[in-house]
């Protein structure tokens, strides 16, 4: 049950929103580079939106194809947790009189998908997945299902904001908390596709990652990929290896930071590599097949396999 990626858009610590991930890969930033949101979101709505909602809706709104999708599917691990804290503070600190409901309204995770539906005036399928460090994989599996059921295009993405409470006590050069938002237009048509997603699955780690990668490849009848993009969406006690099964590994979470839906960032990077071989070659990334491995917490793992369409 494969699908094609027709477009992608990412807000991250790189200048990815303007130029994609591959072209921005050399910058070495750890601070989110946010676009001018008002170019994409009606001002009256924008004023009331919390950061994660702005972050979540904008990549989708940038892509013109979003106006014609049959479904909107969002994966988010932390979701609108910050709004929950803000609302709780009000009543825990004993605020008298009426409480303002704004933070409560914005604290349900499905606010992002709901706002996208609202702005895009889309009456179609609308769902939010929240399985923490594999929330994006949950969303992607659903999106692939929907594309094939309805032979349609779908807007799907992963978004998480940085929450100060979530900061690592000891950041290292390759483990630090990041944030970002990556959205994709998926469809069943090969024409003009930038990449193909062959399979997406989450698995409980069976002994070790290498073994689990093998299980994934076998059960989906896939060849060994040429490159592995490997990262952590959350705290993992294990180091990211230099190679798996003799395949070179690129540590993507060292570039975008740890956040629960960062495999979405890796899928955008993989799409750039597959669809722009010339630029990819400059980074020694030439590949027609790429496996994204997300070791969430040393217990659960996400796998997304991309190839040339």
């Amino acid at each position, binding site marked *: 049950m494969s699908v094609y990626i027709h477009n992608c858009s990412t807000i991250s610590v790189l200048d990815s929103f303007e130029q994609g991930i591959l072209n921005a890969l050399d910058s070495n930033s750890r601070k989110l580079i946010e676009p001018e949101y008002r170019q994409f979101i009606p001002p009256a709505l924008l004023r009331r939106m919390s950061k994660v909602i702005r972050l979540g809706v904008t990549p989708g709104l940038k892509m013109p194809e979003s106006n014609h999708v049959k479904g909107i599917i969002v994966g988010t691990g932390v979701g609108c947790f910050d709004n929950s*804290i803000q609302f709780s503070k009000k009543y825990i600190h004993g605020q008298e009189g009426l409480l303002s409901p704004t933070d*409560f309204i914005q604290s349900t995770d499905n606010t992002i998908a709901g706002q996208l539906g609202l702005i895009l005036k889309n009456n179609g399928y609308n769902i939010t997945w929240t399985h923490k460090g594999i929330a994006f994989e949950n969303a992607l599996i659903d999106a692939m*299902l929907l594309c094939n059921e309805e032979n349609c295009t779908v807007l799907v993405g992963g978004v998480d904001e940085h929450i100060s409470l979530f900061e690592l006590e000891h950041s290292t050069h390759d483990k630090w908390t990041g944030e970002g938002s990556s959205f994709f237009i998926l469809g069943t048509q090969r024409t003009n596709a930038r990449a193909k997603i062959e399979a997406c699955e989450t698995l*409980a780690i069976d002994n070790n990652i290498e073994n689990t990668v093998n299980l994934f490849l076998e059960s989906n009848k896939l060849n060994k990929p040429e490159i592995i993009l490997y990262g952590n969406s959350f705290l993992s006690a294990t180091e990211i290896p230099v190679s798996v099964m003799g395949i070179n590994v690129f540590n993507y979470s060292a570039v975008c930071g740890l956040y629960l839906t960062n495999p979405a960032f890796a899928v955008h990077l993989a799409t750039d590599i597959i669809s722009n071989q010339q630029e990819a070659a400059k980074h020694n990334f030439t590949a027609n097949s790429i496996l994204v491995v997300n070791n969430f917490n040393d217990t659960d793992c996400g796998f997304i396999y991309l190839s040339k369409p």
Partner: protein
Amino acid sequence: MSIFVTGMGVISAIGNNVEENLKALLNSKGGINPLTSINRMRKPFIGGQVKLSNNYLLNTFSISDAKTPHRSTLLGLKAAREAWGNRTELNGIRTGIIYGTTIGSIDIDDELLEVLVNSSEKEQKVSYAKIHEPNFGTDFIAKHAGIKNNRFTISTACSTAANSIMTGARMIKAGKLDRVLVGGAECITNYTLNGFDALMLYSNEPCTPFDNQRKGLNLGEGSGFLVLENEKSVSACGSEKLMRLTGWANTCDAYHITASSPEGAGAKLAIEKSLQMASIKPEEIHYINAHGTGTPNNDSSEYAAMHAVFGDDIPDFNSTKSFTGHTLAAAGSIEAIYTILAMQHNAVFPTLNTKVQMEEAKQKPVLELKHKKINKALSNSFGFGGNCTALVFEK
């Protein structure tokens, strides 16, 4: 391909298992009462509380996990165990779980939240890790049911569990799974009480769904779980077929982030699409378990949607939230189970407390227990964010 419901488990304010819930529904015994044993409520609230304490549940299940599960997870486990029974892992039967709860999928515990808000930065980090576990309930219940892979966590506010059921069915239909445990759970917290109160949607009288003088909703707590299986799994596991799930649809109202459109556009579309999928005509539906929260906005919007699909002759409909309160993320699965019970026992349960017909309506919900044959039924679930889901069950 047929998708069968082969297991059900429920816990709510009106009973701790399917049998007790059925008895209360047949005897018009509602569960909305003044809330007790919730610390630091800003003011008195009424709602639908489950009678069992956390300690009782912990002891019943001999839970000694390092991390004590929150109340919603415990309620979820109770219902999941009833639904799942003694099923075990089976070679060749691909099994999964889809579960959800609300509030940004955070299993917010009032006590922890208070610690979090009042503590120092460092202490906060510890509490944060304990609180913020959207997947905790899913993984916890999966572990107890022996489900290793295909674990999914969903969050679409008040339609969460309906979407769990729908996604489970879709995965079976697509051939990705043979058997799936689907549901949702919710406990009453200060967070949700204050939230709906701030929105001025909370009524401090028992809710009166579809009544002209309705004042709002009451929260409830509980959990509902269903087991869905394909034919292959039914034969391999020797399961009993309780009902078929034949139609489902998920749509977005795209009107307002919390309010429903006056004409119920999203709801109408969800109902139409689910009937279409089941290939049945509106007049074939014998009973509708409405979302019916008792808020002025939901009930008029939902009525408009039903009227748009069914015309002046809307099938017998009720809102069982008048028994349980609005159980948010659990509502979709608890009410799907009530729909199936209504079909099994050929009985439309009453809508409690409702008296006066809505001004714009041409009929009231069913107010007294009504016995009739129900072969095909519809269950509606709507939520914040414009989420609308409809499910069709058939004998």
